[in-house]
């Protein structure tokens, strides 16, 4: 991997970190294609990131050479598959700085991780008049599982408001924590607004009242270094496909004390230690929560993705993305009729915006004709749209492989939208 400190200082894509971002971009084969005759500018990384060659090759290699079921066979292939699968668990443990590898549960993605906690942790504990606390900037996957469990138990869902900059005000949050609150579930970074929430303080405040906290890390894990011990969160959920890994695989981190006390989420193979028709003994952690044949190739690819980002360094990635965010904000703000939705002081490289002249879908169609891929819509966060009184937003979300040229192309594309719709 090209991590050099001796490259020419004239390279525009080189930062103080010494990482050659221009060369890293070449690791992503999908980016070197033409869309409608223009080179692809991919700015929908908050929805899903692209995959480096290393990840694609790891999945290919697994299926060509090592494919077998895990934890079962007494033969070479199964041992290789098991080893690769479990090696990723160690990598995730290191990536999140979890205390133990058994605290890392493989799931389909952040959505399944949150549903697991809702059903296996919250549901047996909730009584009518108990409360779950979320925020007004949550993704649907950190709203609906809690609504479902509240429906099942009679508990109540409370929502921390956000201010006009799309920030959680800690005083508002503090007021909503009370003796009935059984769980706080908050996004680490908002997918629709980019806000980085003050989760360290929020967790400390909840813990003062012995309230456990789940963090939705789907957006945060690719963009900043996560240390679950330093955060002291009780649960952390993330998805591989946002961290340059394959789709269909994700992680639930949970503190062992909670995971040990929880019932399994699903029953099946691998999650048992013995089964008779009279009684089943559940397997130990983490297998208790991994029923059935898992997404082995996905886990293998995810492990390679973690190696890839770890070699670049999350701090370097965060620094580069902040540079890009600043550049993009400066490039977009002067454009006629453009308003950025989500102006938190602490923000990741996500820019949601609306234009006076055109609806987000029209913006997206016109940009696509120029090879620029952005997201238009409600971003699976309809309450956020309601909060800011917009039906939808256009969203450009940047990854470290994006560059200043991509942002210039975005800005040019928006000018074209204005020309088509406003005659300007």
């Amino acid at each position, binding site marked *: 991997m090209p991590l050099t400190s001796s490259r020419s200082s004239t390279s525009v894509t080189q930062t103080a970190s010494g990482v050659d971002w221009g060369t890293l971009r070449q690791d992503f084969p999908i980016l070197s294609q033409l869309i409608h005759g223009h080179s692809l500018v991919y700015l929908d990384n908050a929805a899903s990131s692209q995959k480096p060659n290393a990840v694609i090759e790891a999945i290919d290699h697994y299926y060509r050479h090592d494919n077998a079921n895990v934890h079962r066979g007494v033969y070479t292939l199964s041992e290789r598959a098991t080893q690769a699968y479990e090696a990723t668990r160690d990598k995730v443990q290191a990536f999140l700085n979890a205390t133990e590898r058994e605290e890392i549960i493989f799931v389909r993605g952040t*959505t399944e991780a949150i549903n697991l906690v809702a059903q296996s942790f919250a549901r047996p504990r909730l009584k009518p008049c108990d409360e779950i606390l979320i925020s007004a900037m949550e993704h649907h996957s950190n709203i609906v599982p809690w609504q479902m469990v509240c429906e099942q138990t009679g508990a109540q869902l409370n929502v921390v408001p956000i201010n006009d900059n799309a920030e959680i005000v800690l005083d508002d949050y503090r007021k909503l924590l009370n003796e009935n609150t059984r769980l706080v579930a908050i996004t680490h970074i908002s997918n629709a607004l980019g806000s980085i929430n003050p989760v360290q303080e929020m967790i400390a405040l909840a813990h003062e009242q012995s309230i456990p906290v789940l963090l939705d890390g789907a957006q945060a894990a690719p963009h900043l270094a996560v240390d679950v011990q330093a955060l002291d969160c009780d649960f952390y959920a993330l998805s591989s496909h946002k961290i340059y890994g394959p789709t269909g695989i994700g992680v639930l981190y949970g503190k062992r004390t909670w995971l040990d006390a929880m019932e399994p989420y699903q029953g099946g193979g691998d999650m048992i230690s013995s089964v008779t028709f009279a009684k089943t003994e559940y397997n130990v952690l983490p297998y208790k929560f991994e029923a059935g044949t898992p997404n082995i190739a996905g886990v293998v690819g995810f492990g390679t993705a973690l190696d890839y980002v770890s070699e670049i360094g999350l701090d370097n990635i965060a620094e580069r993305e902040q540079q890009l965010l600043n550049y993009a904000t400066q490039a977009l703000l002067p454009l006629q009729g453009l308003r950025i939705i989500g102006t938190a002081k602490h923000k990741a490289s996500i820019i949601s915006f609306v234009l006076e002249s055109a*609806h987000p879908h029209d913006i997206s169609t016109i940009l696509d004709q120029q090879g620029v891929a952005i997201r238009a819509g409600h971003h699976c966060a309809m309450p956020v749209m309601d909060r800011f009184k917009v039906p939808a937003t256009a969203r450009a979300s940047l990854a470290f492989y994006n560059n200043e040229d991509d942002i210039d192309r975005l800005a040019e594309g928006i000018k074209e939208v204005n020309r088509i719709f406003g005659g300007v």
Partner: protein
Amino acid sequence: MNQDLRELYQEVIIDHGRHPRNFKKLEDHSHSQEGYNPLCGDRLMLYLKVEKNRVIDAAFEGVGCAISMASASLMTSQIKGKTLEEIQQLFQAFHCLVTTPEPPASIQDCLGKLTVLGGVRDFPTRIKCATLAWHTMNAGLDSKIHEQAVSTESSTDLSEESSTGEGKEQPVER
């Protein structure tokens, strides 16, 4: 601007998108129906005044992209004065216009100004924007279901637009 875009965003569409006609609540309507595309958030409320099997007035309110607003604007203008049978024919012709790669010339005569929306056929993810108002109208005229909002994701009429891979948007993203 390339040819496809020029075809999609014709002046008439930009004009109707920015200044939709019949954009108001019809107080003395006989039918009203909400239409909604949950995947993109386009939402409109359609009002119809039907007397003796004929639509004598039509109006709508709502939010959405230029295509959906222009489509609703043009549709409400076109259906005024037409019988329900004529409107069904218009619906079929419009559906053919936006989903058929090379629609027959005969439907052009029938559709009149509505043909400006034909460019949408080259943009599969946008076909539902153009058809939302039409499906809403169909549901509104069908008294069996006009109690609840018609959704682009549950209407059987729309499945044709999806089964060909056209008009299909996916609710992806976390």
